[in-house]
């Protein structure tokens, strides 16, 4: 029996829609109501035409599915409408400023999408014989060269599938290096600043290390005193994970010293490269003494975030760590490019494999397209404009809001909620911005700043857009400073009012279930 026929609502709800009038349809002007597919489709419907099976004898050997999935299908017109309607309930870069600090929400060029869809990339299989896919290997090699040149590092592992996966890659390489040194069992301690992104400590733990938190100083950088103190006993030091520019949007002034000290302590320096956009083309992390750094292609190199992914996190490695890089990797030989897939020969010291196949090819094509478009000169300009935009926003907003730290910022501007009146919280400011037509900034991160608001405009915002954005933020901030009660109810003009996350977590409903069939008497 179909679960959809049950679910399809028979009488649409009357939805009040402001101005005293109610809509019968549940829609409101251009904003369309859209139910769940389970309430729209039927199990008999399909939006895909396929030839009828011949009905020949099967070779399943009896290992067949017993119960139908009961999943509804939609005809193509219904499906298209479903997704187009839903899409319009999303905010997006293409709609306006998306100032999520630490996320580098920059313009996603459509040329990149076009190139990734060339059949020569989209329609090749990861296990085809290598002589059939030399162009793919060459592209990966070219991207690797760009990444190494831009970071000033000798090696790069291409397979990590996102930033956190790149962290994993770097930390596993460190672990492998320690194994090679025979110190893996003793060197377990990884220093991580309190301001670090959650993935840093989570990664360290996932690699079997222990996390030792280091403090920030009043300038938002690593507290060198605390850092030195942590190094008093160096015997168990595995390394440090440090974001640079850091999550307060500041360049770690003492980074070279940190590198020296951690190396002297026998540890390695993992640099979180999420904020590479601030310095790309202006500073090579390799010149700062790091040992490993992931690069979020979905940040600095503009591959689209896609509502949560996919990403790609190639990880550059120093000479000290390069031998332990994961398989596969590409070697250029006499007769073309070659994938090293087995843990022998070139890869005999590798820490192993992180995932199936060879990394996020689709993202590689987009990222290289982006790099070629910008060129070395353009990428430098990217960093400079990103930093200029952030400082411009900082200067304009600090007239009302409380900057978390003094001085210039890099690519993002950080504020605390100090300016807000009692009772008004960061979330209220964020939600009020939604009514102004903006996606809120990153809220409550980094943890080291109270009620943190982290604003990263990126270089792809025009001055006019930033001015308009700043005027909205200032207006909201003024209301916050005045303690305006209406902020607590925001947003008022989004497709939905504020959602109850507590209720969601208390009794999680993680999938649709058919409504209880009504008692027969009620029919």
């Amino acid at each position, binding site marked *: 029996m179909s679960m959809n026929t049950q679910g399809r609502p028979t009488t649409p709800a009357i939805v009040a829609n402001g101005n005293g009038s109610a809509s019968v349809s549940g829609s409101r002007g251009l904003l369309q109501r859209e139910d769940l597919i389970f309430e729209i*489709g039927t199990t008999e*419907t399909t939006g895909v035409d*396929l030839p009828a*099976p011949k009905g*020949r004898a099967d*070779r399943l050997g009896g290992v*067949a*599915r*017993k119960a139908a*999935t009961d*999943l509804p299908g939609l005809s*193509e017109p219904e499906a298209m409408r479903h997704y187009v309607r*839903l899409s319009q*309930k999303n905010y997006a870069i293409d*709609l306006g400023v998306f100032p999520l600090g630490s996320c580098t929400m920059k313009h996603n060029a459509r*040329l990149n*999408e076009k190139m990734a869809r*060339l059949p*020569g*990339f*989209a329609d*090749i*299989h*990861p296990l085809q014989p290598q002589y*059939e896919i030399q*162009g793919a290997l060459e592209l990966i090699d070219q991207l690797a060269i760009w990444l190494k*040149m831009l970071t000033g590092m000798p090696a790069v592992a291409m397979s990590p599938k996102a930033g956190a*996966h790149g962290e994993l890659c770097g930390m596993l390489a460190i672990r492998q290096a320690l194994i090679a040194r025979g110190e893996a069992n003793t060197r377990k301690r990884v220093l991580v600043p309190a301001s670090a992104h959650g*993935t840093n400590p989570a*990664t*360290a733990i996932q690699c079997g290390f222990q996390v030792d938190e280091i403090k920030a100083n009043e300038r938002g950088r690593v507290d060198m005193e605390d850092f030195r103190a942590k190094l008093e006993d160096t015997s168990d030091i595995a390394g440090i994970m440090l974001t640079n520019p850091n999550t307060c949007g500041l*360049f770690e002034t003492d980074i070279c010293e940190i590198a020296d000290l951690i190396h002297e302590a026998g540890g390695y320096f993992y640099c979180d490269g999420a904020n590479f956009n601030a310095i790309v083309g*202006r*500073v090579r992390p390799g010149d*700062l003494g790091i040992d490993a750094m992931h690069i*979020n292609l979905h940040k600095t190199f503009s591959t689209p975030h*896609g*509502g949560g*992914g*996919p990403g790609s996190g190639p990880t550059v490695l120093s000479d000290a760590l390069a031998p332990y890089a994961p398989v596969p990797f590409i070697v250029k030989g006499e007769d073309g490019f070659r994938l090293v897939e087995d843990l022998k020969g070139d890869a005999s010291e590798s820490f192993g*494999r992180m*995932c*199936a196949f*060879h990394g*996020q*090819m689709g993202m590689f094509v987009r990222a290289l397209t982006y790099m070629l478009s910008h060129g070395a*000169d*353009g990428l430098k300009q990217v960093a400079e404009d990103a*930093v200029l935009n952030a400082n*411009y926003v900082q200067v304009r907003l600090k007239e009302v809001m409380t900057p978390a730290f003094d001085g*210039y910022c890099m690519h993002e501007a950080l504020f605390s909620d100090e300016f807000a009146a009692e009772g008004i919280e960061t979330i209220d400011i964020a939600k009020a911005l939604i009514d102004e037509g903006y996606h*809120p900034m990153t809220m409550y991160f980094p943890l080291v700043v109270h009620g943190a608001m982290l604003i990263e405009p990126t*270089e792809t915002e025009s001055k006019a857009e930033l001015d308009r954005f700043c005027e909205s933020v200032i207006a909201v901030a003024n209301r916050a400073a005045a303690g305006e009660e209406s902020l607590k109810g925001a947003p008022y003009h989004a*497709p939905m009012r504020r959602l*109850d996350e507590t209720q*969601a977590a208390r009794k999680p*409903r*993680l*999938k*649709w279930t058919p409504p209880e069939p009504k008692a027969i008497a009620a029919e």
Partner: protein
Amino acid sequence: MRYLPLTHDDRKVMLARIGAASVDDFYTDVPEAARLDGPIHDLPSHQGELAVERHIGELAAKNRTASEGPFFVGCGAYKHHVPASVDHIIQRSEFLTTYTPYQPEIAQGTLQTLFEFQTQVAALTAMDVANASMYDGSTACAEAALMACRATRRKKVILSGGLHPHYAAATRTLCEAQGIEIVQLPAAVDSELELAKSVDGETACVIGQSPNVFGTITDMSSVAEAAHARKALFVSVFTEAVSLGLAMPPGEMGADIAVGEGQSIGNPLTFGGPYVGLFACTQKLVRQMPGRLCGETQDADGKRGFVLTLSTREQHIRRDKATSNICTNAGLCALAFTAHMTLLGDAGLTRLARLNHETACDLADALEAIDGVELLTPRFFNEFAFRTKMNAEAVLAMLDEKGVVGGVRASRLIPGAGFDDVIICAATECVTADDIEAYADALKEIV
């Protein structure tokens, strides 16, 4: 430069407002030695679309595509037809250029599709709940092993001889870093049920696969029972999601955790990524899950809506206590999956699965009929292994010369294990009768 909106004048005005002389002022924290003067040498300058398109297009043209002729490669990634509307939907600005839906009031589009995705994955795998995606099948498998260890507080994981070798390797890498023991059963075409014998009181989980890397499908209910008898978990893996429309799904075998690759539905081959990892489990285990979960709730007006939930499992809240370090997942690929699945529905998926199976059966008939070809896979969905008397690499190269991409040599995935003469080949709805004939004709001439 076309992606940079600031004009020369804008920059001047902004610097003045900031009170900086030049952007160099912002970089004074950078140690002098590390500052670059001009653009990095040896890298080219910016180029227009036309030039870039030519460069990238030339690289693309060097690759032999799966649609160019008879094509039979599988082993964890499958050539299926993706409806044009799916690719259109995922290119909508509002889906493509948005972030993880942390602000649900302006992200209901993403959230509702995730809720639908989770429901679909749960139904397909016949499991209670599914998450909002992992990077891919292999990392989902590795995370499943870790999750089983967390849930059972044990440190031993047993892998079947049919588990995709890349999945096994990824799982080994992650587990060993946490001191988890990996027991790998010897590679074999039809040995998933061996898992039942290896499970012991230390075992956190056993991991079996159906269809496995040789294409063999297996009812692993007995493995589940054996695991449960020793309070271990049974993790059921699949790499071909379309098989769920016809072959027995994890939930029907008693799996505690089901993980697999979702690429086959909605996503092109793209040389191995980005793909979408599917992750489902029983209700009991939900708070041990890695990754994001979307749940139903209400807004201030009492309207139904969706939010990310149970985030206390996740790194951004729990940091070093998180169930995983995953942050960015496979959002857009999950959207492609759910959009394609919504078009298919049960009726379409069932038919698609049958078509795949029948095509593979036709291929098996055609190849089996050739002298010197021995079919190895006893029960299959759309993929099987066969043996010739020749080296598989040589056979494939000769097939290639005749325009047929014949499959994967087993020794590429499982080197040094006596599979040098084995080829694993898949046949999907994209394979035509002519393709099968071309394969059989070519192979006949070779062996």
